[in-house]
């Protein structure tokens, strides 16, 4: 991953630009998209309770990493969908999906020693996506770049696209 702030910036920018076209994607759903962008990193629970600690505890092979695969993320998104009231379930699902998808895509660009990163199709397929190795999660550069883009989108939106007239947004 780039750090979570970069992921939140990316989700904000993507959802905000989409909101210029989709009237239903209001600020509330932009927030849901940003929450969706945090979902794949639930897998980072391994930093608190390492896999090997869980294995010793349960006596069975165990890995938190499934939470960062396509299948694990889908199940997490569905939990979010179920938590939403029925009348808003579909837009919540779409927004969560956009956020989580943007996270998985950004992670697919990460530097790994093997040159391959996320398992987007697991458990259907083990294949890892080839990664150009653009950055490490511990570098601030992705956060700064995405932050500047998000700030630009926010400025455009508050100047031209805000409030009740999304049709006036610059994203035609």
């Amino acid at each position, binding site marked *: 991953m780039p*750090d*979570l*702030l970069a992921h*939140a910036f990316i989700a904000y920018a993507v959802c905000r630009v989409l909101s210029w*076209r*989709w*009237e*239903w994607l*209001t*600020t*509330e*759903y932009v*927030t*849901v998209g940003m*929450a969706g*962008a*945090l979902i794949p990193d639930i897998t*980072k629970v391994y930093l608190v309770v*390492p*896999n*090997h600690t*869980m*294995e*010793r505890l349960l006596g*069975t*092979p165990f*890995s*938190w*990493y*499934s*939470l960062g*695969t396509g299948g*694990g993320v889908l199940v*997490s998104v*569905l*939990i979010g969908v*179920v*938590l*939403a*009231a*029925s*009348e*808003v*379930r*579909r*837009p919540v699902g779409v927004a969560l999906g956009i956020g989580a998808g943007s996270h998985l895509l950004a992670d697919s660009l990460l530097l*790994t*020693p*093997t040159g*391959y990163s996320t398992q987007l199709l*697991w*458990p259907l397929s*083990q*294949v*890892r996506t080839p990664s150009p190795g653009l950055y*490490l*999660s*511990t570098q*601030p550069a992705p*956060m700064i770049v995405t932050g500047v883009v998000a700030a630009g989108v926010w400025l455009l939106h508050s100047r031209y696209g805000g409030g009740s007239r999304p049709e006036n947004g610059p994203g035609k």
Partner: protein
Amino acid sequence: MFVRPNDISQSIDVSPDMIDSTRGRLLAVLCLLAVQVSLFPLYAQQPTDPAAHVYPEGPDVASDPAAYIGERVEITGIVQRTAPLVVRVETTEGSMTVRVANHGLSPERGAKVRVFGTLTAAGELRATDGFVVPQRGRWYAWGISFLAGLWVLWRLVAHWRVKLATLGFVPRETPATIRTWLERTMPGAEGPD
């Protein structure tokens, strides 16, 4: 391309009310959590498959180093010694050290390194690729990620509320702000726009 939330929910075929009661919602969440939990051992047991770029990792190697000699493996470890480079890999049984040759890296002690290469002997790796994750970078990533979590959590609380009758999340009519809270607790304060 252009749909309102109401239009969308009307097009759902399955009766949405089924999981819009407290009990139905909790049951559905429990079922999904069960699926999620079942994926943990499934992932841990996935076979290595170089064709899919799934290689044996540190804990596999550490549990039976001799079995992986000659194979390509991916190892993440904390630097114990720098010359020669020795990293510590955590496993269920404890920890194991691996000597890394041909790495071209200059990490400090305590840094995390991720290397990919061939195991030439039990506990010895000839690296073909790898990089260093400095300790300071890890602190940065944790700190900034924590702030991002707080920011998104705040936005969620400001924009969404829970319907107590069904435990379902719905958007607030007006976003909660610190000012509205202040107004509620101190009646004389200025109201929101």
